């Protein structure tokens, strides 16, 4: 399996915040998002919250030494608290809020039933085992109240958690995305080309070069 790298050393998409790549609306939107802290919770109750945070860590794990991890659970909580919807739901799933409450509680009781502990108390291996069962739809005890665990896993867990993580500038830095771009867009669009305000990728042996370039993206 591939592993995570420091591929865009020194790149911080927020360095462009005050430049021509961000318009006022973008600054406003991102400011609000960055104000969501890891403990910002409005929708989930405490039981659901502990499961949610543990779950988020399994779906989009973050480096242990990351000083300021992406508050994934809080971002999902925010989506549900503001009732931001996808615009459709499978006929076999309840609404988004009910699905999350039901699903998290069901995961927790499956954890207790199979491993004798609550979901967030389990080790990574056991948590992943449970999630893999859900992924295949093999969790189907009465606690799910008829909601297919497979649909819950794919349409709620994956969709909401993954989108929450990749809505955060820290995740953008990690993948070397240019980030917000208006009014300034891009000029150089050919293979292997980058504008001076884009992330520079660390080529093997030339990491320092990329680092220097990345310090300049906000200029």
């Amino acid at each position, binding site marked *: *399996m*591939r*592993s*995570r*790298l420091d591929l865009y050393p020194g790149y911080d998409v927020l360095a462009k915040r005050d*430049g*021509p790549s*961000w*318009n*006022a*609306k*973008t600054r*406003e*939107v*991102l400011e609000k*998002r960055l104000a969501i802290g890891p403990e910002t919770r409005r929708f989930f109750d405490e039981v659901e919250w502990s499961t949610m945070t543990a779950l988020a860590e*399994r*779906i*989009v*794990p973050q480096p242990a030494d990351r000083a300021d991890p992406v508050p994934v659970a809080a971002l999902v909580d925010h989506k549900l608290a503001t009732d*931001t*919807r*996808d*615009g*459709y*739901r*499978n*006929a*076999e799933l309840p609404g988004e809020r009910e699905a999350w409450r039901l699903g998290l509680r069901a995961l927790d009781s499956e954890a207790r039933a199979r491993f004798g502990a609550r979901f967030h108390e389990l080790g990574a291996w056991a948590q992943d085992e449970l*999630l893999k069962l859900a992924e295949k739809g093999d969790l189907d005890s009465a606690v799910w109240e008829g909601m297919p665990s497979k649909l819950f896993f794919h349409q709620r867990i*994956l*969709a909401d958690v*993954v*989108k929450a*993580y*990749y*809505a955060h500038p820290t*995740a*953008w830095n*990690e*993948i*070397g*995305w*240019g980030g*917000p*771009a*208006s*009014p*300034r*867009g*891009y000029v150089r*669009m*050919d*293979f*292997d*080309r*980058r504008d001076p305000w*884009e*992330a520079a*990728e660390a080529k093997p042996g030339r990491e320092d070069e990329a680092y220097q370039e990345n310090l300049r993206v906000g200029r």
Partner: protein
Amino acid sequence: MRIPGLGNAADNPKHVTPGDDPEHHPRARDGRAPNVMRIGEWVPMRQHRDEEEVDFAIVGTGAGGGTLACRLAEGGLSVVAFDAGPYFRPLEDFASDESHQSKLYWTDERIVDGENPLQMGSNNSGKAVGGSTVHYAMVALRFRPEWFKTRTLMGYGADWPLDWREMWRYYDQVEDDLKISGPVNYPWGPYRRRYHRRAHEINAAAKVLARGAEAMGIGWTPTPLATVSAPHGDAPPCVYRGFCTLGCSTNAKQSVLVSYLPRALKAGAEIRDLAMVGRIETRNGRATGVHYFREGKWRFQRAKNVVVAGYAIETPRLLLNSANQEFPDGLANSSGLVGRNLMVQGNQAVWGVFDEEIRSYKGPPSLAISEHWNYDDKGHGPFAKDFFGGYSYMSQGPLPQLWANTQASAHGLWGEALVAEMQRYNHVAGLKVVSEYMPQERNRVTLADVKDQYGLPVARITYSWCDNDKALNRHALKFLREALSAAGGREVWDQGDDTCHLNGTARMGADPRTSVVDADCRSWDIPNLYVCDGSVFPTVGGVNPSLTIQAVALRTADRILARRR
């Protein structure tokens, strides 16, 4: 005098966000509507009282409704156009952010089922003045002429009651109105007039398509796009920011919001934003107006004619929700076909990793296209066609959230595998089809028991592939895999379950028993009720439908105006 393009049309990065909240308080009121080309500015708008019987009440302001409203108003008719969504000024309201821009989508509840339940929302449904064109990918393609007569000429689907030569003239007109930026010579189909702007520079992702097509020995071309490559009035040329499907914050994109609607306002049309139409009233077999919810209460606008242009889900939903004693099965539904023959288009993709940096987030997502398989009916060897219909395919440029979601949902990655794979974002390129699925009566829109925030039953959308659709999917994925590999893609994988666009739930035809509306988009049952959007398509073809929707709307306007003379 104001020189075009100067002043605040060019975004000043230091400006502040607007004080009003267009998502909760209507902007088009008090005799004015937003000037979409300027920050904080307004244009005058003629307004009508509810009791005043206007010539046309149009439900929806997207590709169908907005275009039609413009032409009818320019023809001297009194027009009120309703939209359930907000009236945005892109320069000040649009952030460069995937999450935030979901405000452009129709995210009210809808229920999906069937063997292949559809994804709605971001994918295909807009809720804003300007409709889905505010977040469409701007691909502006014409139908192949034969597609207007597929039943007669190709043995599948249903014939349109329209002649392609007439449509060709209307395509000319839309392309002129939108200043489509396209190649100097388009390689497929009969002669067409030169596009009004040159094609955009293609990005690396599009060059991947070009390499693949050249290796496979088929044609390709820069895609004709409804975003200008050279200034047009207050619209600056595209800056290749890559957020096209999340709303264009520069106004380079010629959405209905910035093209036809300003013209409509100038010609005297009224646009009502945040106005959800819930029911069409009829009396003695004629429509008399629409009930709509705005500013906290239900109101009724009288009208001599009503046009439904809510796209292929909301249009049948409104017609069905308007059932009354006169029309117990819903309006215009004597054929029983309202809501039936829902057609989406295949949107399968293949993705691969490249040694070069691709950075497909730069530029419009679909800068290059091949329509080869729309025009080659036989194919040969491993790519012999064993199905009806065709497909085009285009390059892609997903932004991080969409790409991560694709990796998770279609590639099955999560955990460390996902975050590590996501780091190859800048090295990924993909090819994505827009393919022709068959009309099937079982694919349909019905009303569910669930009610939405307006108290109206929500749409239940049932969708399943037929064998022909599946055969097409197989052919397309197989071809795309080879093309992408030939272009240098490694670790190529399929995204096999994606669809786009909505059409066909109020089809047009020549026979009242087998269609909902006639060639002029007028319903067979109610002479002053029209449907003007993608719903009227009897077949979808293998190209993005917006240009055809707009061409049909222009024709409909001409027919309505001609009848009045």
